[in-house]
């Protein structure tokens, strides 16, 4: 007679594990191959960015935001500078060219982030080729990054009130060529994955989460849209001139890993569309707002004009001082709602900067999505949540 042994087994996954996308640790309680309980442990990359920002001026905090979600640095820059601009009450004074370039870079960043997501997700599930293809296109975006900001990843390109520099000559055409080629590349990835039976078996019906449960647990971004909630901050609470562009928000009802994959691929197509529209609308103009007490004057004026020299000196040594108040500004980052809650006490440092990282909240949904399912599905679910430990732990 068979003895029913009901003892479960606990295994540890991570922080050193090739599929945890960084330093995530999962304690999994298994009944055979079935996950009974999953407990994520985070904090292995807690660098104290929020505390550090209280000791930096508003401008000095921008490079810290690069290193939050290091797959999408410009989205973080954008969220932060928009928050500071709102705190200063200068949102309406941002020149049009700045807004267009910000949108172009933010959408390129979305492509960049989704390419790494697709590469790693496919690699985890066993499709090596997609990894190489995605990194090929990602290199093109890092080249563009390098040309505008000088760095491949940690761009630090946006400034409060504008940009650090204008686009170099000829880059508009390069971005256009890239954005035009992107839909064909996405077809290529789809050709490798969508109809692939292994891919379908590993993703369809895996990691289901209903719309109600997803909202309760706070999931945002593509993961929420794949559960049938039609909500995108770019369209619903537009910032940086997103209301000028014609784009669709892909929504699917499947609530599973496959639909999250499809939603992200559709988002990549829409991102290329937005880039092309923004390039069409891009006109020459100033790249810094006309607020001399906040924005650094250009170098020519500093040399020739005593007033500009004084402003330059004051901004560099002290920084600007927003009046006391508090604001919350969020952007649709590639992973979901990225929010910055800033409090000013009238000094040149943020009194408190709370970051609302999308990955932190999305990861909270992981236990619900894997419990009761096979161990191998944990890998697929970590991939589909598209987490980045840099912003989870901050």
């Amino acid at each position, binding site marked *: 007679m068979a003895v029913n042994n009901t003892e479960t087994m606990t295994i540890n996954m991570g922080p050193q594990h090739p599929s945890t996308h960084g330093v995530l640790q999962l304690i999994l309680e298994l009944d055979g191959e079935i996950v009974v309980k999953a407990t994520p442990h*985070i*904090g292995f990359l*807690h660098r*104290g960015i*929020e*505390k*550090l920002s*209280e*000791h*930096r001026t508003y401008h000095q905090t921008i490079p810290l935001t690069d290193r939050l979600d290091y797959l999408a640095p410009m989205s973080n820059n954008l969220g932060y500078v928009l928050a500071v601009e*709102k*705190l200063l*009450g200068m949102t309406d004074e941002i020149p049009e060219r700045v807004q267009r370039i910000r949108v172009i870079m933010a959408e390129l960043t979305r492509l960049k982030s989704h390419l790494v997501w697709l590469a790693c997700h496919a690699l985890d599930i066993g499709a090596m080729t997609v990894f190489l293809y995605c990194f090929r296109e990602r290199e093109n975006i890092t080249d563009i990054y390098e040309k505008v900001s000088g760095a491949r990843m940690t761009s630090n390109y946006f400034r409060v009130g504008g940009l650090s520099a204008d686009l170099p000559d000829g880059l508009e055409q390069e971005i256009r060529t890239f954005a035009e080629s992107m839909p064909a590349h996405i077809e290529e990835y789809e050709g490798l994955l969508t109809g692939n039976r292994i891919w379908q078996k590993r993703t369809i019906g895996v990691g289901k989460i209903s719309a109600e*449960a997803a*909202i*309760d*647990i*706070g999931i*945002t971004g593509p993961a929420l849209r794949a559960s049938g*909630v039609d*909500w995108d901050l770019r369209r*619903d*609470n537009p910032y940086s001139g997103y209301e000028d562009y014609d784009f669709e928000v892909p929504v699917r009802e499947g609530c599973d890993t496959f639909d999250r994959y499809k939603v992200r691929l559709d988002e990549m197509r829409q991102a290329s569309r937005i880039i092309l529209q923004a390039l069409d609308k891009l006109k020459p103009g100033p790249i810094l707002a006309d607020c001399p007490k906040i924005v650094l004057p250009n170098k020519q004026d500093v040399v020739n004009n005593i007033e500009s020299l004084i402003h330059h000196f004051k901004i560099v040594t002290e920084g600007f001082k927003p009046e006391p*108040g*508090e*604001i*919350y500004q*969020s952007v649709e980052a590639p992973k979901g*709602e990225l*929010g910055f*809650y800033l*409090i000013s006490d009238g000094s040149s440092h943020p*009194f*408190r900067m*709370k970051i*609302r990282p999308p990955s*932190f*909240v999305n990861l*909270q949904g992981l236990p619900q999505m894997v419990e009761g399912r096979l161990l191998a599905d944990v890998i697929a679910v970590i991939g589909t949540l598209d987490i980045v430990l840099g912003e989870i*732990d*901050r």
Partner: protein
Amino acid sequence: MSDQKIVEKLKAKFSSEVLDVVVYRGETTVTVKKEQIVDICTFMRDKLGYNLLCDLCGVDYMGKEPRFMVVYNLYNITTKQRIRIKAPVTEEDASIDTVSTVWGTANWHERECWDLMGITFNNHPDLRRILMPADWEGHPLRKDYPLQGPDREPYQGRLS
């Protein structure tokens, strides 16, 4: 429904609880007493439609009384509106009731708030450290906690 009407509804229901209403840069902040925070949040979710808790955090106003403030940033996915609720917490009794029963997402946010700010959340299902190691002492985001940690002589050569 405008933010003003929402605040009026909240005031009508919890007249003795609302301490202050501030509108700054188009954002409405309502300060409430901490005792009935769960009821207020349930009311916000069920009657006013704020179904998403975007963010929950603690703020340390060291030197002021009460010292801490727990901040809830709410979002209504249907009407795309935001509102902010704040509840003051004193240093002597640094605790507030958990809202993880109202929004599941509050679970980790409250753990983080306890970990970094040292505010206890009553009736929380799993209140333990989340970002710092389990044996860590102190709450790093408090204003009296040194940036480079208590066991290091701070570097004097620059601003921080």
